[in-house]
């Protein structure tokens, strides 16, 4: 079989730090090849080198026998189509404008764009992919999953032009923001492309997906390939061991002992959500007790993206309210909720979670900064020490609080954001896609912290499309459909499995 992609000795340094350290990679035509590795091991860097975002320092890459020259310009002319990890959309432009950008809107630089034809092309494409996006809506109005789908459609346009053979598709964590059903459709599409003779490089931290759809895989550690084998001949445990350099017992920590929810000895109710409604969410009503971990899920656009913001006062609810430890929140500002010891770890890290040019310490200590205020000013030494301790607790690498956030890999940024809220000892912790883009080792560590905080008496709500994770760590999971709670699956019932959750999401009537 011909190689769709052959990479030899790829090296790329950012200043003195080596992101790629002689990486080798072989992807055969007709296969879906998983590229796996810990956060910050260099996966995205490879993608960027292959697509001209930046040039490697050395190393050779050939695509279907043709050697790439750096910097790579117009990758699609080499048969490369890519979905980047940071999706690359502009909020203040419409869906159609964002879709056409990588295809040059189907015309010359100064030719007139034929909007009708563009709509037809993308309309057909979306029909076939069973995706639906409104063309004239601003991207800022899209849900995170819709943005991912936009990126999929956008990349597919280029692929469609020469379906199948001679094509290399690279997808860098395309499913991170997708829910089960959408992810499945994307995986099926990927499979079909490969079956038609294309080479597909698939980057994901969701090993279940990898096991399901990939033919072979390469594990990268510190910029080098450390393991490569057919997926059929390996196990998740082996993969994780190769990624982390150690074996991991379970992928998810066990949930804490279930608190008693009613009766004389019941745990106290910490979070009450009563009739809360927003643009999508309708009449959300539930309570969460001390020591409980509750999941909320649903398909994209069904409300689980909106709900955390409504509870935390980021968006003012249309009706209803949330209360924390008996304090009813007016829902006008996050500050009010924070004062009531509620913490929200937002889903869109770059937009809502951090100041990318600020240092990790500055980001991490923001909610507790006044603790370090002395009459003569902020005690910087104490602040830095505190940040370093907290970062060590969640295993941030590198553990240097003085580095700007931009110098950390996506997963490590997530850890800093996580640590920022854990340190406040929240009574109610809301987690929006907490392990999005986080490698399995790190995800395990983060979730362990979540379980621990629940054990110590906090109420935890996890909003996620990752059913496997929810099934593993929650006491019960609420399923939203068109903004309403259509199902509640409890661990006690023994029904709390990934498959049941998916089923409940996709066929709400049955639930």
């Amino acid at each position, binding site marked *: 079989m011909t190689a769709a992609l052959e990479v030899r000795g790829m090296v790329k340094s950012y200043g003195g730090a080596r992101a790629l350290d002689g990486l080798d990679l072989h992807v055969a035509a007709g296969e879906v090849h998983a590229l796996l590795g810990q956060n910050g091991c260099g996966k995205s860097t490879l993608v960027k080198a292959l*697509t*001209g*975002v930046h040039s490697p320092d050395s190393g050779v890459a050939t695509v279907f026998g043709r050697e790439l020259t750096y910097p790579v*310009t*117009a*990758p*699609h002319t080499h048969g490369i189509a890519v979905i*980047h990890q*940071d*999706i*690359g*959309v*502009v*909020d*203040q*432009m419409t869906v159609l*404008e*964002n879709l*056409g*950008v*990588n295809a*040059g*809107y189907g*015309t*010359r*630089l*100064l*030719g*007139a*764009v034929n909007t009708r034809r563009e709509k037809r092309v993308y309309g057909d494409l979306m029909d076939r992919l069973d995706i639906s996006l*409104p063309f*004239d*809506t*601003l991207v*800022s*109005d899209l*849900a*995170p999953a819709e943005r991912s789908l936009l990126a999929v459609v*956008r990349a597919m346009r280029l692929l469609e032009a020469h379906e199948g053979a001679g094509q290399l598709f690279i997808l860098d964590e395309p499913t991170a923001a997708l829910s089960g059903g959408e992810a499945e459709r994307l995986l099926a599409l990927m499979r079909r492309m490969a079956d038609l003779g294309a080479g597909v490089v698939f980057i994901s931290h969701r090993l279940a997906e990898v096991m399901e759809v990939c033919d072979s895989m390469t594990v990268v550690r510190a910029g080098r390939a450390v393991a490569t084998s057919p997926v059929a001949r390996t196990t998740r445990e082996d993969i994780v061991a190769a990624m982390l350099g150690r074996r991991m017992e379970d992928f998810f920590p066990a949930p804490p002992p279930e608190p008693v929810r009613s009766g004389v000895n019941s745990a106290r109710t910490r979070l009450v959500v009563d009739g809360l409604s927003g*643009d999508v969410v309708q009449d959300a009503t539930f309570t969460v007790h001390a020591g409980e971990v509750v999941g909320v899920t649903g398909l994209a656009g069904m409300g689980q*993206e*909106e709900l955390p*913001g409504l509870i935390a006062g*980021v*968006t*003012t609810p249309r009706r209803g309210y949330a209360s924390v430890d008996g304090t009813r929140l007016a829902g006008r500002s*996050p500050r009010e909720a924070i004062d009531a010891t509620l913490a929200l770890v*937002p*889903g*869109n890290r770059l*937009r*809502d979670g951090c100041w990318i040019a600020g240092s990790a310490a500055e980001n991490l200590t923001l909610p507790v900064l006044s603790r370090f205020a002395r009459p003569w000013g902020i005690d910087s030494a104490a602040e830095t020490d505190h940040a370093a301790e907290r970062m060590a607790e969640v295993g941030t690498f590198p553990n240097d609080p003085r580095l700007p956030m931009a110098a950390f890999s996506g997963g490590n940024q997530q850890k800093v954001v996580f640590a920022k809220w854990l340190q406040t000892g929240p009574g109610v912790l809301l987690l929006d896609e907490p392990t999005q883009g986080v490698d399995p080792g790190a995800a395990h560590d983060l979730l362990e912290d979540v379980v621990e905080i629940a054990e110590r008496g906090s109420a935890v709500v996890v909003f996620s499309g990752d059913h496997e994770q929810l099934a593993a760590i929650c006491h019960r999971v609420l399923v939203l459909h068109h903004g309403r709670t259509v199902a509640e699956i409890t661990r006690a019932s023994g029904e709390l499995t990934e498959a049941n959750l998916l089923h409940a999401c996709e066929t709400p009537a049955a639930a």
Partner: protein
Amino acid sequence: MSTTTQQTAEPTRAPAVSRASRGLAQRYALLGIGVLLLLVCLAAIPSFRSLRLVTTMVNGQSIILLLALTATIVLRTGDFDLSISQTMVGSAAVVAVLSGHGVSPALAIALALLLGLAVGALNALLVVVIGVDSFVTTLGSFTAMAGFCYLVTGSRIVAGVPDFFVNFSRSTVAGIPTVTIYAWVLVVVLWFVYQRTPLGRYTLFIGGNRNAARLAGLRVSAIRIGAYLVSGVLASFIGVVFAGYFGAVDPSVGGQYMLQPFAAVYLGATALAVGRFNAVGTLVALYLLTIGITGLQLLGAQTWVTNVFYGLALMIAVTAAKLAGRKTRAGLS
């Protein structure tokens, strides 16, 4: 820091349902204000009903309109080019001085355009290639060009610009002076490029999210450099027009042409295509301001009134557009 005109900074969010109606209200707020103002002026001020008045009003704004249109080019890519007004005066000075030395119009124009190209290239080098903040860089080239204007003119007014240039700017076609025609042609060209071509969208994409544009495979740097070069060359073309229009070049006037174009551009970005720097909106905004000020002048308002009007009109118009377009807004989704 890096002052950018990032179009993403404050995503306006609205529920899906109101997507369409919101667009309409916001889109035509400014146009509505303009038409209303015109009608009020027509009704209240008899002398406003003269065609002559309207044409002089429009013609008098042509240089500023040209500058404002030029300003949109770089603004769309998310950068500033504050230097255009001085580049204009510098080029006008070059044309006037060279002509005074008997250099042929063609050569004088060519050298003036070359000057604009050089300023654009310097701006592009610093901002795009080296990555310095565009606000401070172009403030620097603005000031340096002011010095250049004094240099070439010897700090004197250069009069006696040849008739060739005067005709170039002032001769009329169907009663419309060429300077106005240039401005309108530029409106049409930019409208086409911005609204209808991939390049127009690329500039917006780059201004909106530079990293996203890079990931989408756009030649971000090439387009940004191109924007500065076009901006510089257009500014020096306006300089040629300027020299002919006034027939004399005073090296000290650059500063007076700095702010008004930006006011029109920002105001225009609230009209027609909300939040996007665009050509037609700029034209509407500028004419709106002109109608208002002319109306006030006809009513005998003093200097302070026109300034206050100008300032308040800016604030009110953008506020109106904002309010018209707002249903819900808030944090994250």
